[in-house]
């Protein structure tokens, strides 16, 4: 399949540059630190919790905060990996290789998206290893862990789609990175606006915010509407990217 060839090349090029390795290392290091700090807190409060009826468990006190910080950290990091997707090919003028091959724009975009998702899922797998080590000394809430991982995966998928679109807008990777970061942050904090205003606006902005849906999934509340929200977001930005790439040929 041609889409997978494009995805494979994208992933390969990522790992041939030090960028991917650096990002994996930094993310892993910071999250490991937070993870250990969280466990420390948990161990301190554990005796008191044992006395309580229906007290929060290890998953809620360690894994959920870890995934919460992972989301923020990845919001900062994803623009750095997605920025080069299209803009660097434009800058190096390698885009014409794809344009003059018998491939549709949709295949190019999906190929690139899958390539970057491959990298982000590797990152996710490495993050997931941390909570899994807790199984050595205790029990985890499997459902909650799964819904958290799903939430993080969908979140990364949306980050990547936004990043890909921003990358199709510019020939400068740095510009793509900064604008991706801006859009992601805006989508993240959108529901803050709701705090002061009345019901309806609060509802709309709250719904649009990525944070809101992620929080629900983190709490272990699997609602298909949250999943659909992310899938829609991904679709919208992928379709926009295809159109943007198509427009390249028509006016430059």
């Amino acid at each position, binding site marked *: 399949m041609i889409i997978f060839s494009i995805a494979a090349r994208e992933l390969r090029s990522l790992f041939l540059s030090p960028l991917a390795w650096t990002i994996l290392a930094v993310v892993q290091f910071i999250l490991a630190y937070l993870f250990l700090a969280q466990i420390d807190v948990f161990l301190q409060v554990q005796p008191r919790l044992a006395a309580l009826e229906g007290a929060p468990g290890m998953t809620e006190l360690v894994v959920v905060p870890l995934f919460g910080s992972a989301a923020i950290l990845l919001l900062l990091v994803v623009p750095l990996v997605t920025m080069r997707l299209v803009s660097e090919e434009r800058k*190096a003028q390698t885009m*014409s*290789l794809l344009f003059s091959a018998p491939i549709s724009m949709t295949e190019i975009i999906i190929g690139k998206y899958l390539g970057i998702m491959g990298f982000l899922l590797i990152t996710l797998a490495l993050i997931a290893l941390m909570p899994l080590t807790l199984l050595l000394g205790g029990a985890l809430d499997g459902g909650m862990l799964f819904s958290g991982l799903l939430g993080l995966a969908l979140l990364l998928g949306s980050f990547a789609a936004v990043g890909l679109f921003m990358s199709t807008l510019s020939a400068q990777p740095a510009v793509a990175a900064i604008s991706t970061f801006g859009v992601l942050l805006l989508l993240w904090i959108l529901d803050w606006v709701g705090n002061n205003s009345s019901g309806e606006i609060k509802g709309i902005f709250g719904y649009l915010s990525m944070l809101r849906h992620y929080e629900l999934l983190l709490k272990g509340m699997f609602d298909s509407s949250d999943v659909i929200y992310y899938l829609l977001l991904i679709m919208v930005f992928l379709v926009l990217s295809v159109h943007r790439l198509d427009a390249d040929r028509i006016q430059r």
Partner: protein
Amino acid sequence: MKAQVLVSVEHLYRYYGGACALNDVSFDVNRGEVLGFLGPNGAGKSTTMQILSGNLAPSTGRVLINGMDIVKQPRQAKAALGYLPDQPPLYRELTVNEYLQYCARLHRLPRGEHRVAIDRAKQRCGLTEVGKRLIGNLSKGYQQRVGIAQAIVHMPALVILDEPTVGLDPIQMREIRALIRELSSEHGVILSTHILPEIQATCDRVQIINKGRLVLSDTLAGLQARMHSSSMVVALHKMPPMAELAALPGVGSVELLAEGHRVRLHHTSEQNPAEALVERAVQQGWGLHELIPECVSLEQIFVDITRTEPHEVTDVTRDEAA
């Protein structure tokens, strides 16, 4: 000779904002033909190449490759073409083998044929020894060759090369020209360049584009006939009266050159007065010791055409056919 039409370009226009980069460009390319595309910088060469390769959509007009419209049936049309842009589209972090493998996949070659296709392309472009090296570490000349290999790896019916010999040393240039000639046995080739000897060495047909308009389209043979134009310089020891020279059959006008015993004879292209002149010179004892037919270089034609404001397309091939 009725050759098979591989590419037909019909009334191409392309605007960049208000500026018109291409103005009513139409031409055909046949199978097994090398078409040279010539023009000064900014004349619209690269724009034409980009449109032909589907990298750019024409504002109006259409391009058919193998009968397929490049805008409406891009997949079928693009399957038949290989394109080398003026900047070779190389991924510097890949090795030559990996890169060509990727290109073969992009062009949907069956997996089993990859090895053979890649080996053939490498062998043709002289890349056999550098297959395992990173493209980024290769010299400019080798990178250019990888670019060409990329354009021919899937054996397309049409190869479009935009200034393929830029940055090459003279030996490599000759090799690339030989390669282009070799390609023309199986592929149609469109070659854009501003290097005139390259056109003379490789092309069957030449088109000159200036300010977005096609100002000349001729076979190389036709151009060469045009280059053997209509004057000769003659040196005589004993200069006869001008009127006597002017009376020779075919001579239009006579021009005395500064040295005093040389004249330039302008004549019609149908009738060459050289033979009559020599006969007469021997009879009358004029002491003829030099006779030089003057050639206009391709460069001269190029300069003449691109400097004067074009009003009409001089399409000699079509005139001759009519």
